[in-house]
C-alpha cells in the first residue's frame, strides 16, 4: 500500500482553534508543504502575528517567534539579519499587516529583506469579533461599520499586493485565493515561489491569500467561499504582480 496523503512534517499534530469553515487551516497546510518540499524545516523560523493566527506558533513544527501587532516583518528582519542561514517567514492577517503594521511591511519590502511574508486577507478583524479592517469592502457590514463600509467616511480598501509591487526591491509579489481546489493549487505554487526567492537569495517574497471568515461574515462556510469569489476577487484581482528572472 502506498501512502498518498499525510500531514506535512512542518505542521504540528495538534488541534487548531480556528472556526469551522475558516481557510486558515488550508493556508497553514500550504505553507507547511512548501517548507517540507524545500527541505528547510530544520532551519525555518516563523513569526506569528496578533490576530486569528496569533497561536500559529503552536501549529508550525519549526522554531517560532510571536510578534507584537503589526511588527512581524521587523521581527523577521531581526531574525534573518542575525541568522542569514535560517529561512524566515511571517504569517499575518489584514489588520496586522495592512493597518497597524503598514510601516513595517512596506520597509521590509523596500529593503528587500530575504524573508517570506504570507498575508491572509479575509477583509475583517476576526479575533476581536468582526470589526472593519483596512481591507473591508465598500458596503461590507462589520461590527464597526454596521451600515456597511462607507467610502466617504472610511475610504477604500487597501490593495497591499499592488502597493508593495510598486516598490523596486521585492522579488516576488502575488495574490491568490483558496476558495476552490484549482485556486488552492495555484496558491501552493505562489507560496513555494515566495520561499524560493528567499532561499535563492533573490529577495523579498510576498503572497496575499484571500481567505474566508464564515463566523464574522455571518455566512455558512460554502456561502463564504462563494463570497470570496463573487465579491473579493473582483476588487482584489488574482495574479503575480512581481517576479524576478529565474524565480520559482
Amino acid at each position, binding site marked *: 500500500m502506498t501512502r498518498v496523503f499525510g500531514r506535512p512534517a512542518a505542521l504540528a499534530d495538534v488541534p487548531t482553534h480556528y472556526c469551522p469553515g475558516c481557510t486558515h487551516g488550508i493556508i497553514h497546510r500550504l505553507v507547511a508543504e512548501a517548507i517540507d518540499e524545500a527541505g528547510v*524545516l*530544520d*532551519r*525555518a*523560523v516563523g*513569526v506569528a502575528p496578533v490576530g486569528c493566527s*496569533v*497561536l500559529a*506558533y*503552536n501549529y*508550525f*513544527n*519549526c*522554531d*517560532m*517567534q*510571536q*510578534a*507584537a501587532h503589526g*511588527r512581524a516583518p*521587523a*521581527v*523577521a*528582519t*531581526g*531574525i*534573518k*539579519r*542575525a*541568522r542569514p*542561514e*535560517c529561512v524566515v517567514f511571517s504569517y499575518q492577517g489584514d489588520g496586522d499587516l495592512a493597518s497597524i503594521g503598514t*510601516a*513595517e511591511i*512596506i*520597509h521590509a519590502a523596500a*529593503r528587500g529583506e530575504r524573508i517570506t511574508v504570507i498575508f491572509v486577507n479575509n477583509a475583517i478583524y476576526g479575533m476581536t469579533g468582526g470589526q472593519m479592517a483596512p481591507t473591508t469592502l465598500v458596503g461590507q457590514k462589520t461590527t464597526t461599520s454596521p451600515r456597511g463600509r462607507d467610502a466617504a467616511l472610511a475610504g477604500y480598501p487597501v490593495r497591499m499586493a499592488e502597493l508593495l509591487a510598486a516598490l523596486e526591491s521585492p522579488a516576488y509579489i502575488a495574490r491568490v485565493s483558496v476558495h476552490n481546489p484549482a485556486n488552492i493549487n495555484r496558491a501552493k505554487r505562489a507560496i513555494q515561489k515566495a520561499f524560493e526567492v528567499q532561499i535563492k537569495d533573490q529577495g523579498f517574497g510576498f503572497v496575499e491569500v484571500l481567505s474566508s471568515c464564515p463566523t464574522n461574515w455571518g455566512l455558512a462556510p460554502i456561502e463564504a467561499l462563494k463570497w470570496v469569489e463573487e465579491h473579493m476577487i473582483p476588487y482584489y484581482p488574482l495574479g503575480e504582480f512581481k517576479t524576478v528572472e529565474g524565480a520559482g
Partner: protein
Amino acid sequence: MSERLLMKGNEAVGEAAIRAGCRLFFGYPITPQNEIPEYMSRRLPEVGGVFLQAESEIAAINMVYGAAGAGARVMTSSSSPGISLKMEGISYIAGAELPCVIVNMVRGGPGLGGIQPAQSDYFQATKGGGHGDYRMLVLAPASVQEMADCTADAFELADKYRNPVMVLGDGALGQMMEPVTFSKPPVSVSELPPKPWATTGARGRAPNIVNSLHLENEELEKLNLRLEAKYRRMKSEDVRAEVIDCDDADVILVAYGTMSRVCRSAANMARSAGLRVGIVRPITLFPFPSEILSELAKKGVPFLVVELSLGQMVEDVKLAVNGASPVQFYGRTGGFLPTPKEILARMESVLKDRSQAPCGAVPER
C-alpha cells in the same frame, strides 16, 4: 593590553558594545544620540556585523526582539521621545525574556521637549515604562569611561537574567569627550555561552518558541512570579552604588549620572567651607541601592536628592529611608544643570531646617 582613547560618550558606547560581542544594531536617528548609530554604521561592517537603520524606533526595537530571540547580542539606542516609542517592544522583550541592551541618552520632555540633558525618564526606565508587570535592569553611568564599562556590563547582565538592560545616560554624557580605557580583551562571539532557547532552526531538537502570550491564568501568573523572582535576584546580586564620605556626614547628597558630577564639585566646595558632605551615587537605578540608603538613614543624617527633573528618584530615596531621616529635593529642568553653588546653598538650607525642625518634619521642597 589596554588601549586609552579620547572618545565621545556616544562613541564609547558603540565601541564597548562591539567589544562585548554585539554584532547587530538597529536604530533610528534622534538627537542627542546620533553618534551611536553613526559609529555602529561605520564599525559593525568591519567586524562582520550588521547595522540597519530602521523605519522607526518601533521597528528598531522589534528587530531587536527578533535578533535577541535568535540568540544574538543586539543593541538599540535612542533618546526620550524615541524610547517612548520603543516601550511596547520592551514590554514584549521583557515578557518573552529576551536579553538585549537599550541605550537612552535622555533629553528633556514631555512631548518633543528639548535636546538638552535631562533625567526626566527615571520613572519610565525604572518602573517598567511599557505595559505589564516588568522591570528593566537600569545602569546609570557618570563618565565616558563608565559609559563604556556599563555598556559592556549591560550585555553580561542581559544574558545573565534574560532581561532587557537599559543604559541611562543623557545628552551631556553622550556629547562630552574624555579618555577611555578598554582594559578587557574583546569578547569572542563564537565563545559566548550557547542560548539553547533561541530560535536558530530546530535541528535535532524540539522547536523553540519565543512568546509572551499566556492565555491561561495559571500560565501568566507563573510567568509573572518567575519575573518577580528574577527581579529579586537582581536586588540581591547586582545593586551598584558609589558611597563617598558618608560615615561622618552632616548631609548626604544623592544623585546619579551627570548630576552626580556637579554634586561632587558642590561637596568639595562644602568641605572647604567646613561642612561634612557625603554622596551616594546609585549606578544601578533598578535594582535601586535602597539598603545602602536605609542603613545611612539610621543615623538620622538628612539627605538632599538632586536631579535633572522635578523629582523622580527622590521617591525611591524616600521609600528606602522610610521616614528615618529627612529627605529634601532640588532639581532643574529644561536643560539647565544646577551649579555647585546652587547645590551648596541648598545644602546649607537643609542643615538650617535640620537645626530647627524635628527629624522627618522637614518641608519637602
